[in-house]
């Protein structure tokens, strides 16, 4: 078969998706995108996974990276003599932990693993071969200050991370609530106690005696005449009594706070009513629960608000009217204000006091009704957190789902998560975070911000566990989704500002300015020489990883490769031009770069259907870029117009200059020349000063001339040290004696150590040392 026929076969596949008995080979699971070639085994790579869901410390340390923890610990040991050994053991332990997470032994896959248990198990495993590992593991552990679950990128990761961050935020809310409640209850009880103490009943001799006894023990009980004291007190001071209304109000507040079920009480009492749950699997349930608890929430928030006024003595039951010369101002009473408390709905600021509702849903379970409920929940303005986890990003749309056979098959992606996201963005006051599981750690700060947001928050996370990617790790699938723009990273924070440019951030995507991220791909040719080419990672590459879309690709044998096979981004541009020209049969075919199971580079043609999906994905990304302020067409148009106007004005000015008489040139005045001279003098003086100040009497080394011969470092390793180029410098001139400086200078074979003058005039033998140092200064 000659090359022309083969080229025609390739074009035929591109247009029809049919092989036609040509030499093209079907794509199977053994092929992987070229950029994945380096990651055959993720357990051997140091990267930000697995994550530690830390149950200690501040919310900012809620999600930690195992590698990050080890690096922090190693950094903390930088002055330690065993640092290198501990660091190497730390890396080895990390690898053991990764292996165990990836291939669990004695633990079901997907079940949460305890960080401490895995760390200790890894230490025990490695200690068999090297007894010092145990010590390294313990020292590192002491520096981690973290404990909790250890999670890898798998199907459970999104809900685990989101729930953990949610629970950390709720825990800090609970702490704040309990502190506030305790403070208020203490003061409210004090008010009630004061009433009793100030009443006639409280001044009876028995009560006074009991009070003193309770405070100071029994030793003074006989010292005082409590009967006399009681009489004096009753006569001297009128009885203090709370109004019945106030007493009831305060008692009511105390009871409401005591009975609240929004937070688990700090000290559980048997028979307590169980606290409310706030995690739901459907928005409808969350909304129903909110409705059921609404009255309870209003009562609690009302009680807290009144309590604040009561403890400060600011509560005014009835209103008052201030009258001045011309106007009168009426202030309503608190009774009236609180009578209708919450009737018009609770605002987000008040609701932030209470726990947030969390809903975790899978996008695959989102029917029309569920989607509507999410929209309803998000549009209420309530502090509800909705996580929608997507496992299958390339889920075919409804029209493609039926078991159709070619040519009825229709390639169309459902993009359910995309639809949900667009709706949420259009609600304008919803905090949105869209991220692949692989990005979650990098976006932990945004996640925390979303959890603390005063309003609804929507988290859309792609897990990478599609079930259609063979043995490619979920982390890589998730990362590929971000890289290919199939699942771009989006942070939309309504609290950041009032316009798109401040609210929407797409900077966390790879190469956000470009259509596709492009990466250098290195490989070796037949003679094992390294070659490099730039490879873009597009939706076509992402689709080629999926079992369901492999039929849209065909491997071209190496012998048939030609210049007509061009990369997908180039093909997208080319096809637009050809379409404009009305070309029916294209002159080129799009192709992607892959590697096979023997790590050999292969190229596959992408058919037109898959290319069209890639074009759609690109268009969606481009519109997102515009919203995010990148390549914004409105801005570009405005700039173009402004430039045209400026050019016009410039042309007009030039025209007027040409017609106007030439201005006369003013001679340079003397003072200007003098000033210039003065400047040069100043510059010269500075230069002289710099040259003179160089080292003075201080010792120094001509570091660039050091030959790393170890002479000086052996004299005193604290005084002399090596820099990053392993060349010596004086690390601390005070770390040794002048004698050592002189001896090092004498020992230095290239004579680059200059001892300077002695720093300690009392050092013995200075006279001799100064003579010896002279040749080196």
């Amino acid at each position, binding site marked *: 078969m000659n090359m022309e026929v083969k080229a025609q076969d390739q074009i035929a596949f591109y247009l029809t998706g049919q092989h036609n008995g040509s030499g093209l080979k079907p794509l199977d699971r053994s092929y992987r995108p070229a950029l994945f070639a380096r990651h055959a085994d993720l357990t051997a790579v140091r990267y930000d996974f697995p994550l530690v869901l830390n149950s200690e410390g501040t919310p900012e340390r809620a999600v930690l990276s195992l*590698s990050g923890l080890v690096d922090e610990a190693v950094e903390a040991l930088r002055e330690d003599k065993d640092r290198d050994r501990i660091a190497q053991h730390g890396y080895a332990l990390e690898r053991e932990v990764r292996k165990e997470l990836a291939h669990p032994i004695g633990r079901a896959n997907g079940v949460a693993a305890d960080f401490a248990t895995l760390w200790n198990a890894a230490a025990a495993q490695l200690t068999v071969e090297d007894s010092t590992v145990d010590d390294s593991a313990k020292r590192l552990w002491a520096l981690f200050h973290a404990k909790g679950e250890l999670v890898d990128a798998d199907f459970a990761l999104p809900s685990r991370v989101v729930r953990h961050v949610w629970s950390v935020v709720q825990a800090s809310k609970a702490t704040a609530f309990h502190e506030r409640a305790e403070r208020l209850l203490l003061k409210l009880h004090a008010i009630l106690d004061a009433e009793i103490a100030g009443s006639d009943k409280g001044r009876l001799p028995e009560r006074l005696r009991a009070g003193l006894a309770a405070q100071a023990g029994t030793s003074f009980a006989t010292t005082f005449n409590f009967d006399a004291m009681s009489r004096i007190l009753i006569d001297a001071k009128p009885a203090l009594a709370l109004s019945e209304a106030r007493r009831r109000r305060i008692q009511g507040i105390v009871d409401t706070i005591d009975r609240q079920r929004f937070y688990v009480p700090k000290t559980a009492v048997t028979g307590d009513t169980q606290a409310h749950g706030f995690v739901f699997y459907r928005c409808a349930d969350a909304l129903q629960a909110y409705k059921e608890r609404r009255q309870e929430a209003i009562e609690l928030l009302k009680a807290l608000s009144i309590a604040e006024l009561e403890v400060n003595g600011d509560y005014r039951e009835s209103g008052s009217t201030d009258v001045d010369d011309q106007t009168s101002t009426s202030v309503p009473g608190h009774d009236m204000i609180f009578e209708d408390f919450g009737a018009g709905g609770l605002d987000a600021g008040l609701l932030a006091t209470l726990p947030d509702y969390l809903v975790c849903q899978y996008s695959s379970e989102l029917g029309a009704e569920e989607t509507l409920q999410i929209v309803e929940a998000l549009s209420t303005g309530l502090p509800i957190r909705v996580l929608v986890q997507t496992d299958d990003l390339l889920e075919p749309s409804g029209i493609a789902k039926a078991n159709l056979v070619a040519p009825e098959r229709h390639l169309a992606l459902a993009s359910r998560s995309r639809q949900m996201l667009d709706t949420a963005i259009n609600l304008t006051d919803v905090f949105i975070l869209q991220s692949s599981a692989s990005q979650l750690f990098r976006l932990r700060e945004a996640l925390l911000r979303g959890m603390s947001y005063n309003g609804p928050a929507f988290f859309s996370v792609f897990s990478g566990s599609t079930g259609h990617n063979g043995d490619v790790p979920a982390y890589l699938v998730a990362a590929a989704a971000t890289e290919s723009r199939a699942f771009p990273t989006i942070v939309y924070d309504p609290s950041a500002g009032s316009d798109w440019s401040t609210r929407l951030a797409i900077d966390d995507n790879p190469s956000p300015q470009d259509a596709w991220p492009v990466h250098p791909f290195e490989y*070796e040719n*037949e003679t094992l020489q390294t070659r490099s080419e730039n490879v873009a990672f597009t939706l076509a590459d992402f689709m080629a990883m999926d079992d369901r879309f492999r039929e849209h690709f065909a491997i071209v044998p190496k012998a048939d490769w030609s210049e007509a096979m061009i990369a997908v981004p180039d093909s997208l541009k080319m096809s637009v031009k050809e379409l404009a020209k009305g070309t029916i049969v294209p002159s080129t075919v799009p192709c992607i770069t892959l590697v096979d199971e023997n790590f*050999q580079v292969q190229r596959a043609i992408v058919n037109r259907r898959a290319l069209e999906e890639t074009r759609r994905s690109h268009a969606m990304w481009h519109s997102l870029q515009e919203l995010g302020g990148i390549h914004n067409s409105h801005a570009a148009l405005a700039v173009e117009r402004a430039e045209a106007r400026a050019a016009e004005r410039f042309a007009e000015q030039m025209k007027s200059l040409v017609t106007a008489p030439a201005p006369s040139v003013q001679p340079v005045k003397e003072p200007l020349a003098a000033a210039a001279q003065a400047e040069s003098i100043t510059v010269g003086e500075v230069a002289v000063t710099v040259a003179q100040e160089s080292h003075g009497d201080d010792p120094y080394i001509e570091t660039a001339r050091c030959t790393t011969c170890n002479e000086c470092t052996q004299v005193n390793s604290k005084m002399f040290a090596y820099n990053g180029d*392993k060349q010596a410098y004086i690390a601390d001139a005070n770390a040794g004696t002048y004698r050592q400086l002189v001896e090092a200078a004498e020992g230095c*074979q290239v004579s680059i150590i200059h001892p300077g003058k002695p720093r300690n005039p009392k050092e013995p033998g200075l006279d001799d040392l100064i003579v010896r140092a002279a040749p080196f200064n």
Partner: protein
Amino acid sequence: MNDTTMNGIAKSGAMTFPLPLAPVNVNDCLLELYEEHYELEDYQKGVPRWCTGCGDNAILTAVQRLCRDEKLAPEKTVFVSGIGCSSRLPHYMNTYGFHSLHGRALPIAEGIRLARPDLKVFVNMGDGDCCSIGAAHWIHAIRYNMNMTAMLHDNNIYGLTKKQASPTSPIGLKTNTTPRGSYLEALNPLSVTLGVSNVSFVAQVVDWIPKLLYQTLSAAYHHKGFSFVRIIQRCPEWLPTHMDDYLHDPQRVLLLHHENGLEIDSELAKRYTNMEEHDPSNLNRAREIASGSDPIPVGILYRNDDVPLYEEVRSDSRLRTTSLVKNGLEAEFDKFTIWPEGQTRAKHEAA
């Protein structure tokens, strides 16, 4: 499009050995899981046992800086040596290394180059190692012109055997083997190298000018072919004052500079004023310069980028697939495998 097939992606093996010491940095690309960034310490292994003041330390530092600056993956780099003080260098490099037989560093390096052309090959030899027992290999290595950087650590003495005369010991030098002084004129490694056909890169440098040492090694590394660098070095233990005159008198070093050779920076030019502009493509002048020993010529004497490489002339057309490598290794192992009576590989595999 012609460079098509590969035998294991270049970086595919990088993940297991050795672990990067640098902290994990998150890159823009999620598919780039680790950063290719190296520090000098990443190439350091163990504590050198060389004497304090030994020029080998300077050479070790220079090659470590070169590896770091060129971002050479340790698992894609190999240092081969023979026997001698200098030949301990591979022990102190955290790369692959081969401390081989006396005088046999070059043929081993050539074998590596043929079998694993993906590796960056460096060779470290002493003056005895290269110019005496390994002289035949040296001459043919020049002629074969295989892509590698060969460093001749020349201290004019056998240090490891405690001060015995080497082929480069100057006439009259008293050593344990020449107590009345060396009788023969010293061998000039530069002249020898420049006299061999197919020579493609010859340079000389001294260990006590670290900047030039680095620059010269860098130029040698970038040259495609057999780069021979003679490094004149000190031996503080056995010849403590041997180089002193050169060391302390900058005029006794002749810096060779050229736009196609080394470019001397202003700091060095201030100290070493004895300079000559020498075009490295001029072989005759290179031979003249090589024949002089005082002042010591330092710089690139000769460079010819057009000399064909043996590995390209005789490249193996078979693809180095994992199965090919495995079968080749198995065949080699089989030569030494003792099977139980009646057992063969075929039977063993069938079982």
